[in-house]
């Protein structure tokens, strides 16, 4: 996914989005692919695992009437 698509979908400023993307790539949740000078981002295996775990613990917190 290109950064312009992410900006549109996330409704965020460029500076905020690039900071977030750097953080997510740094933690290994996203993969940055450079193709023809264009950066594309895709979710990594670790990112998918994190999402699954996050959903599970969100469910767990909801059971106690809490928000994650």
């Amino acid at each position: 996914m290109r950064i312009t698509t992410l900006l549109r979908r996330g409704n965020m400023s460029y500076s905020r989005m690039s900071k977030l993307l750097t953080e997510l790539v740094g933690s290994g949740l996203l993969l940055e692919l450079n193709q023809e000078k264009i950066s594309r981002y895709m979710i990594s295996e670790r990112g998918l695992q994190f999402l699954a775990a996050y959903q599970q613990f969100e469910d767990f917190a909801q059971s106690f009437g809490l928000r994650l």
Partner: protein
Amino acid sequence: MAGGVDVSLIADVLQFIGVFVSFSIAYVAFRGLRQTRSPAMLRLATAFLFLGVGFMVQAVLGLEGVLSVLPALTTTVIAGLVVASALMETAGYFFLAFSHALDVMFSKRLQVALLLFPVFTLSAAQTTDALSILSFYFILYGVVETFTAYARTRKPDTLLIALGLALLGSGTFVAWLSLMYPVVYVLSLVQIIIKEVGLMILFIPVLSYALGGAKANGPI
């Protein structure tokens, strides 16, 4: 009196179920904290860690009273440990209620609860009585908030947690009564049974998380 000793022994052994359940929930919440870094998970882990430690101290002290396995403890030390365990339990319930309080940012219900607080605390003569009343209040608040959450989400797990907490609250209330009427041995057993059933109900939805499920590779 022999019946009293039996009741105490059963009650103390049952306490260990509470210890196991509390530490299991704390473990799941801690795993959630490591993976999501959520403050809600931190409060939940802290709450059940305190509850578990409180139950454990109570159980060990109770067993010591019946079996006398530990080296001779002075009355002051025992009294201190009893107060410490009650404090731990109260702190656990506080963190449980506190999680909800942060969620709703001091809702009207909490304000009413805090206004009523002094009425009940003034009637308590001893520290353990006061802590028991505080525990009851905190858990009552947690029950109300969890039932409210169930009304919103309609999740069966939330209903089970709310029921479990309600039983824990009832057990705490009976514990308070047992402090007021120490000669009625059965109250001590009844409060433990109610609490243990409550904890076991709490454990049902937590079981699936405790047994594993989705895992990220280490903390993010």
